[in-house]
């Protein structure tokens, strides 16, 4: 029975996994493994006989009960249960808010598309919020915590994605409230229990006839467990602080990059597809490859930026930002890419009217292989390939074949 209750909480916490930064995921793992499992397993066996084996040095009935109550107004295990619940609460509330916000923004995008194109775009059937909400929902009596159509749940994890969704403020608020709760519970644990469980306790309450010695069961084991939980709490607190620092430093670095790229902007602005574009749209480089070999600054450009730069002209964003992971904007980018491809194809045709019959397929076959190699090299070197962007590249590759064939 209590396993079921812990599994409910752990299931919710796993869903939070998809909405945290890397340090947040580590914190979650520490929480689940060290605290929940330890409390459930160790607490059960160590503290099960804490009252029955609490004996006082008197035969007066009732003295045992009263002295046990004075010794342990709140048992350790219950204290830790409260602590775990209170500390998970900000994360769960953040997750609920994030799901709500993402669902709303995808609704807004869908309506915008419907208004623009007067027909439902293909992604409306895949409601982004659906797999997320399914964490708390049941289909046909079976619990499916992840997705309903077999697709991967959209991951809004990582600092950049959280930033893009406009959730950063709430995320930081959640982190701070977690830290405050952690500190409060640590202080409470110290005030209530200290660092040691003494083997004997002196009690003088009515109806005990005089001062009696009462003896606690397994004091050393309880002391060790108490100290372990102190250490785990401090570790979680340290992870919280690290996460806040990670967010702060990352944002600071991003603003630095943005400032630097704003300085670089005028040079590359005249030509929409600068040399930064390497892999997408891949077909485009077939055109440009004859003129100049594209040099890939591997260290700087992660895989996602290839897609981001497609929409660079339209959005005037810094190339350092990741593409938004919702499929709606992805489709928009692809459309833009296709239009640019058509334009580039026309210029290529104009340029190479004198050239002899250069059939597309062998050339594209050869350069596609080279392009794929380049892509894989890039991916290995720096990128964090995400499922959405992988889908994007496959879709882009399909786009390329549709253009060339």
């Amino acid at each position, binding site marked *: 029975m209590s396993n079921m209750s812990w599994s409910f*909480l752990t299931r919710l916490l796993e869903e939070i996994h998809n909405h945290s930064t890397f340090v947040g995921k580590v914190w979650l793992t520490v929480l689940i493994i060290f605290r929940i499992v330890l409390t459930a397993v160790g607490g059960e066996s160590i503290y099960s006989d804490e009252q029955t084996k609490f004996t006082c040095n008197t035969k007066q009935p009732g003295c045992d*009960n009263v002295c046990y*109550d004075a010794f342990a*107004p709140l048992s350790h295990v219950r204290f830790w249960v409260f602590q775990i619940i209170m500390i998970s*609460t900000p994360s769960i509330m953040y997750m609920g808010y994030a799901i709500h916000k993402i669902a709303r923004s995808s609704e807004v995008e869908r309506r915008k598309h419907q208004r623009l194109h007067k027909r439902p775009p293909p992604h409306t059937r895949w409601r982004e919020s659906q797999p997320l909400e399914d964490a*708390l929902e049941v289909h046909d009596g079976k619990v499916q915590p992840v997705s309903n159509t077999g697709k991967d749940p959209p991951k809004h994890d990582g600092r950049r994605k959280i930033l893009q969704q406009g959730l950063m403020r709430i995320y930081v608020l959640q982190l701070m409230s977690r830290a405050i709760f952690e500190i409060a519970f640590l202080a409470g644990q110290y005030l209530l229990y200290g660092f040691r469980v003494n083997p004997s306790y002196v009690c003088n309450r009515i*109806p005990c006839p005089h001062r009696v010695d009462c003896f606690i069961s397994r004091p050393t084991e309880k002391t060790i467990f108490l100290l372990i939980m102190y250490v785990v709490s401090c570790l979680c607190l340290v992870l919280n602080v690290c996460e806040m620092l990670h967010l702060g430093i990352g944002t600071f670095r991003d603003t630095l990059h943005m400032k630097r790229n704003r300085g670089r902007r005028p040079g590359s602005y005249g030509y929409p597809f600068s040399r930064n574009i390497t892999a997408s749209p891949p077909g485009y480089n077939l055109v440009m490859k004859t003129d100049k070999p594209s040099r890939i600054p591997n260290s700087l450009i992660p895989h996602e930026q290839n897609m981001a730069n497609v929409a660079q002209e339209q959005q005037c964003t810094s190339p350092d930002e990741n593409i938004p992971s919702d499929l709606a904007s992805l489709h928009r980018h692809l459309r833009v890419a296709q239009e640019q491809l058509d334009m580039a194809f026309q210029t290529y045709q104009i340029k190479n009217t004198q050239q002899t019959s250069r059939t597309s397929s062998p050339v594209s076959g050869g350069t596609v292989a080279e392009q794929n190699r380049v892509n894989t090299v890039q991916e290995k070197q720096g990128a964090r390939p995400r499922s959405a962007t992988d889908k994007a590249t496959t879709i882009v590759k399909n786009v390329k074949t549709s253009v060339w064939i």
Partner: protein
Amino acid sequence: MSWPALYAQLVGANRHSTSLGKIWLSVLFIFRVMVLVVAAESVWGDEQSDFTCNTLQPGCENVCYDQFFPVSHIRLWSLQLVFVSTPTLLVSMYVAYRNHCDRRRLLQGQEEELETLKTRRLPIVGALWWTYFCSLVFKMLFEGSFMYVLYVVYDGFEMPRLVQCDQWPCPNLVDCFISRPTEKTIFTVFMATASSICMVLNLAELAYLVAKALNR
């Protein structure tokens, strides 16, 4: 108490609730069901075995325990949680009925719409609004009445350390001692607080529904 079965029933209806309803469900399961199962049941686990009276007279402890604990807190809270969750099933019954009618109508039409039937989300208007409204009212009624019953039976939310009892067969006025009274008080106060939070959420949801209806 089969909490997983109750959980399975409730999350099905969760899709058709407002956001406040979803928060209510989370509060219910995290702060009440989970705390009840994981913590409170172990606190009240030895409530009769460790209830000692200051006498050797056989049967006196049983009788005195029965006098002061007609219904244990744990059972009262379990009943409260079951009753409070039941009105939500009203809503899901209504939605199922609507889906059934629509499915029959649609079977004569397109086939693919049947898939969206299962996953669509009905807007809260008309008869669904009234069903939802009634379910909220009943929820609040049940919460309030169970809290009142707890308060009356146990004379407040505090657990005394010592009770005095002179029921037959106890020979005279004996002192009986309750096990873990402080811990039980803490948990009683916690569960009463969680109940009030749920009641406040229900009230807010009621106000939101009424406001939405008036706006229309």
